[in-house]
C-alpha cells in the first residue's frame, strides 16, 4: 500500500495511459472488455484524485506528495510531480470528466479501440499538466493533451457541412469549412501556433534562470529581467490563451467542439480549455509577475471582450453545439478575467470557474450528444417539444443552463461571483459590469435554446421521431455531472478551500509586484 501511496500522483497520471496500452492487446471484437479497461483507467485516476484531495494536508498547504524521476539530468529535466491546492481541484475535475466521458461513449462501436486509446492518452496528458512541477514536462504534457484531438475529431467527429458562401467561399470550398476534418486541422494548427510561442518563452526562462533546471519552483523564484518579462508574457498569454479560447484566437473552438464526438467535446471544453487558462496563470502570471502586472489590463480587457463577444456570438447561432461552444468561449473569458484581476477573489474565482465550467460544459456536451443521437440534427430551429419524450434530458439540460447563467446554488454562480468580486477590487473595477451583463446574455440564449428544443408542441421538422430519454449507461455521465454541479454549487468550500490555499500562497508575490508597478510613475 505504501508503494501506491508514495507514487499516487504517478499512478493517477499513468493509469489512463496504461489502460491505453492494455487496450492494444485486447481482441478487436471484445468491445465490453475495452470499455471496462477504459473505465478502470478512468476510475483509478478519479479515485486517486479523490484520495489526494482527502489526504491533502490543509494545515501545511504548499506542494505535497513530491515525486521526482530524473529524465535528462544534464539539462535539468526531471519528471517531477507534486500537487498543490489548484492541482487537487483540477485533478478532481479531470477525474470526474473522464469518468463521465467514458460513460458517455459507452455505446461507441466504430473503431472503439483506437478511440479509447487516444482519449485516455489525452487524459494522461491533462492530468500530467496539472501535477507536474517541471516546466519542460509541463510543456510535454500540454502537447500530448492537445494532439490526439486531431484524430479524435477527424475520425469520430460528426459530419456537419456548412454551405460555402460569403466573401471567402473559395477558401471555404478548398478547406471544406464546417467539416470535421477542417475543424480538426484548424484546432490542431491553431493550438500548436500557441505552443510555438510558449516554447520560446520556456527557453527564455530556462536560460535566463541559469540554464540548469526546469524546476517550476526554482524558475518561479528566479528574477527575470524586466525587458524579457515584458515580451515573454504576451507570448505566453497568446500561446496558452489560444487554448483557453482567448479572443481572437478562439475560432477553433466552435468548429472543433461542434465537430467533435461527445466525450471529446466534454473533455475538450471541460478540461482542455482549462489547461490554457491554467498555463496563463501558473506559468505566465506566476513566473513572470512583472510582465503579468504590466499586461494585466490588456488581459482583462480582452477577457471582457471574450465574455461579451462569446455570449453574443452564441446568441446568433442556430446549431446547438455552436451555441454551447460559444458559451464556452464566453465562460473562459470569465476565467481569464478572474486571472487578470490579480486579486485573491479573482484567482479563486478563475480556478473555480475552471472547475465549475468544466463540469457544466461536460454535462452540456453529454446532453447535446444525447439529443443529437436521438434527433440526428443539431439544428435548433428544427427541434421543439423534446421534453415530452426525454424529460430527464430536458431537466439536466436546464440544470446545465442554470449553472451556465450563474444561478446561485449551482457551481457556476460561485465562480462568477468571486470573479466579479475580484474584478471590482482590481484596478479596473468596471470589468465586473460586462461580466455581469454577459451572465444575463447567457441567460437569454441558453434558456431560449431550452425553449426551442424542449418546450413547445413538438418537433418542427417532420423527420424527427423515435425520440426517447436517456437510458442505460447514458445516465452515468448525466448524474455524475449533474450532482456535481449542485453539490459543488451549494457547498463550494469542498473545492474552494484547496484553491484558496494555493492562491494565498501564490498571489502575494504577483500582487505586490503589481502594486509596486502601479505606484511607479
Amino acid at each position, binding site marked *: 500500500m505504501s508503494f501506491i501511496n508514495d507514487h499516487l500522483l504517478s499512478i493517477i497520471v499513468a493509469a489512463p495511459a496504461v489502460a491505453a496500452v492494455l487496450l492494444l492487446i485486447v481482441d478487436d471484437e471484445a468491445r465490453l472488455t475495452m470499455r471496462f479497461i477504459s473505465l478502470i483507467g478512468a476510475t483509478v485516476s478519479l479515485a486517486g484524485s479523490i484520495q489526494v484531495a482527502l489526504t491533502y494536508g490543509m494545515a501545511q498547504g504548499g506542494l505535497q506528495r513530491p515525486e521526482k524521476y530524473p529524465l535528462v539530468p544534464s539539462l535539468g529535466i526531471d519528471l517531477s510531480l507534486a500537487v498543490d491546492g489548484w492541482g487537487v481541484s483540477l485533478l478532481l475535475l479531470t477525474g470526474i470528466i473522464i469518468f463521465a466521458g467514458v460513460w458517455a461513449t459507452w455505446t461507441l462501436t466504430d473503431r472503439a479501440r483506437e478511440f479509447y486509446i487516444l482519449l485516455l492518452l489525452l487524459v494522461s496528458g491533462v492530468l500530467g499538466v496539472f501535477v507536474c512541477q517541471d516546466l519542460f514536462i509541463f510543456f510535454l504534457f500540454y502537447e500530448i493533451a492537445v494532439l490526439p484531438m486531431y484524430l479524435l475529431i477527424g475520425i469520430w467527429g460528426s459530419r456537419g457541412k456548412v454551405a460555402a458562401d460569403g466573401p471567402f467561399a473559395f477558401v471555404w470550398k478548398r478547406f471544406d469549412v464546417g467539416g470535421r476534418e477542417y475543424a480538426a486541422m484548424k484546432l490542431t494548427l491553431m493550438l500548436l501556433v500557441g505552443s510555438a510561442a510558449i516554447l520560446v518563452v520556456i527557453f527564455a526562462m530556462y536560460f535566463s534562470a541559469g540554464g540548469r533546471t526546469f524546476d517550476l519552483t526554482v524558475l518561479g523564484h528566479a528574477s527575470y529581467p524586466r525587458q524579457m518579462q515584458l515580451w515573454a508574457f504576451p507570448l505566453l498569454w497568446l500561446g496558452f490563451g489560444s487554448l483557453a479560447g482567448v479572443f481572437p484566437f478562439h475560432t477553433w473552438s466552435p468548429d472543433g467542439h461542434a465537430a467533435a464526438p461527445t466525450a471529446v467535446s466534454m473533455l475538450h471544453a471541460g478540461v482542455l480549455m482549462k489547461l490554457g487558462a491554467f498555463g496563463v496563470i501558473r506559468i505566465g502570471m506566476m513566473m513572470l509577475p512583472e510582465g503579468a502586472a504590466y499586461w494585466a489590463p490588456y488581459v482583462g480587457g480582452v477577457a471582457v471582450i471574450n465574455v461579451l463577444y462569446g455570449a453574443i456570438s452564441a446568441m446568433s447561432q442556430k446549431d446547438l453545439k455552436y451555441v454551447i461552444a460559444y458559451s464556452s468561449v464566453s465562460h473562459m473569458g470569465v476565467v481569464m478575467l478572474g486571472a487578470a484581476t490579480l486579486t485573491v477573489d479573482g484567482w*479563486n474565482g478563475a480556478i473555480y470557474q475552471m472547475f465549475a465550467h468544466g463540469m457544466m460544459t461536460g454535462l452540456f456536451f453529454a446532453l447535446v450528444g444525447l439529443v443529437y443521437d436521438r434527433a440526428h440534427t443539431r439544428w435548433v430551429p428544427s427541434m421543439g417539444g423534446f421534453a415530452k419524450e426525454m424529460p430527464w434530458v430536458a431537466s439536466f439540460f436546464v440544470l446545465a443552463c442554470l449553472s451556465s447563467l450563474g444561478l446561485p446554488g449551482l457551481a457556476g454562480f460561485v465562480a462568477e461571483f468571486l470573479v466579479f468580486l475580484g474584478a471590482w477590487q482590481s484596478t479596473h473595477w468596471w470589468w465586473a459590469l460586462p461580466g455581469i451583463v454577459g451572465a*444575463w446574455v447567457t441567460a437569454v440564449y441558453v434558456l431560449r435554446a431550452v425553449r426551442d428544443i424542449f*418546450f*413547445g408542441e413538438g418537433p418542427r421538422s417532420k423527420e424527427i421521431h423515435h425520440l426517447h430519454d436517456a437510458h442505460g449507461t447514458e445516465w452515468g455521465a448525466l448524474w455524475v455531472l449533474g450532482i456535481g454541479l449542485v453539490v459543488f454549487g451549494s457547498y*463550494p468550500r469542498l473545492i474552494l478551500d484547496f484553491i484558496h490555499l494555493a492562491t494565498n500562497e501564490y498571489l502575494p508575490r504577483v500582487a505586490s509586484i503589481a502594486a509596486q508597478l502601479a505606484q511607479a510613475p
Partner: protein
Amino acid sequence: MRAIDWALLSTFLPLATALLLVLVSPLRRTGLGAGLVSVVSAVATFVGAVMVLASRFGAEAGVVHRTIQWLPHSALGGVAHGRGAIELGVHVDGISATMLVVVTFVALCVQVFSIGYMAEEPKADFGRYFTWQSLFLFAMNSLVIAPNLLQLFLGWELVGLVSYLLIGYWWKKPSAARAALKAFWITKFADMGLLAGLIVLFLATGTFDWTVTTAAAGTVTLLLFVAVMGKSAQFPLHIWLPDAMEGPTPVSALLHAATMVAAGVFLVVRAFPLFEQAPNTLTVMAYVGSFTALFAAVVAVVQTDIKKVLAYSTCSQLGYMVCALGAGSQAAGFFHLTTHAFFKALLFLAAGSLIHGVHSNELSHMGGLLKKMKVTSGAFIIGSLALAGVPGLAGFFSKDLILEEVLHRGLWAPLGALLVAAFLTAFYMGRVMWVALLGEPSEHAKHAHESGPSMLAPLIGLSVLAIGVGYFGGTLSGLYGEPVHFHLSAIGIVATVLGLSGLGISYWMFGAPQGGKAILEAFAPVGRLARSGAVNGFFAWSYRSVMTRVAAAIGWFDRYVIDGLINGIAYGTLEAGSRLRVIQTGRVQDYVYVVVAAMLLIGLYGAFWGR
C-alpha cells in the same frame, strides 16, 4: 426546540421533500401521493413558522443570528474582524418571523387548493408540480431567513428559477414557454442590479450585512432597487407579470401575487437600514411605486381576463408597498405586504375556483356565478372588498397606513396617484364582481358547479385572515420596531370614500346587464395601449431588432472576419506552396542552373569576406 431550529426546519424540510420527489421517481409519478407528501411537509413547515413567530412573543424574543462560512474569507476586508466573510445562515427577527408565517400559510393553502385544482393533470405532471412547490417553499424561506443580503440574493434567484419552472408548467403551450422565458429574462436582467449592488456593498464595507453604515449606500440601494423593480414588477419592468399568468392559477396566487413578487418589497424591508441612508433612492422609490400603482390600476380596468385583472392589481398593490417604503415607512410597506399576501392569494384562489368552474379565464364567459358557487363567490367578494379598502377588512388598514405616511412626508404627487389608484382599484374589482358573480350567466357559466372541499378549505382559511389580519398591525410592527397603531385619519376617510364610490360607480355601470359599454369605450385607448403594450413593445423591439441583430452581426464578424483571417493565412500558405512548386521544373539542367548560380553567389560572397 428553539426558534432557530424551527426556522431551519421550515427551510430544509421543503428542500428534503423536493429532493425526495426529484430522486424517487415512482413516488413522484403517483401524483396524488406526491401531492400529499408535499402538503404534509407544508403543514410541518407552517407549524415551524408559527413556532418561530411564537418565539417572538416568548422569553427568547431577541434576534437570532447564526451563520456559517460559505466561501473562503475574502482578503477584501483587510484585517478588521468579521470583515470579508462570505457567510450563509439564519436570521430570525420580527420581520423574518412574520414573513415566514405569511409565506408558509399561503403556500399551505395553495398546495391544498392545488390538490383539487390540478386533479385532472397527468399524474407525472402533478408530481412535478408539487416538486416545484416544495422547492419554492425552500427557496422562499431561505430568502426570508437570510442573515445577509448574499443569502437573500441566493434565495431570490432560486425563487426566480421556480417561478420560471412553474410559469412554464404547461411547457407544451408555446405561450407558456414564452412567458416563462420572458419572466426569467426580465427578472434576471433586473437581478444584475442586485448582484452589482451586492458587490459594491461588499467592496465598500467588507460585509453583506444590511445594518452597516456606508457612504456607498446611495449607489448600493439604487442598484438594489433595480432588482426590486424587476422582481416586484414595477414600471417599466412589470411586463413579465401579466404574462406569468400562463402558469396554473394557484401558482399565480402563491408566486405572482402573495410571496415571490413581494420578495422585492421584502428586500427593501429587510435592507431598510441601508435604504434609510439613501434619501434619494427613497424618493425615486416613492415616485416609481406610485406611478406603478396608478398605471397598473388603469390597465387593470380594461382587462377582460380575470387573472390579468388580478395580475395588474398585484402590480398596482406592489406599487403601493414600494411607495410606502419610499416614503420611509418600513412598517407600512411590510404591513401592506402581509395583508396583501392574504387577500390577493385569496382572490387568486377564488378566481382559480371560478375558472375551474367555468373552464375559462374570460370575464365574459362568467356571470351569475354567485348562485352556483356560493362559497367561492363569498371568498372572492371578501377578497375584493379587502382589496378595495372597505373599512374593517385587512386592506383598509394597511392602505390607510400607507396613505398617511405618504401624506406625512408631503409627497403630493405620489399621494394623488395613490388616491386615484385607490378609486380605480375599487372600480375594477367592483367590475369583476358584478360581471362575474352577478350578471347574466354565459354559456360556460351555466354548467358551473362549486369546487370540492380541498379547494374551498383554503379559501375559507384565507378569508379569515383577509378579514382579520388588519387588526394585528400594531402587534406585528411591534415585533421589529415601534408599534404602529391604527387611527382613522382624514386621508383615510378620503380614501375610503373614494373606494366606496368606486364600487358604487362600477355597480352603476356594470351592475346592469350589458352595462358599462360607454366607460369601456372611453378607456379603449388605454386598453389598446395595455394590450399592444408600449413597454412590452419596446422590450420586444430591443430584443428582436437590437439584440438579435447585434448578435447576427457579431456572428457574421466572427465567421467571416476573424475566421476569415485565419483561413486566409492558411490559404495564403497553401497558395504559396502551390505557386512555388513550379520552381521544381523537372528539367535537370534547370537544377544545374540553380546549383551553379547558388555556387557563384556563395563563392562571390566568400571572395568578398575573404578580402
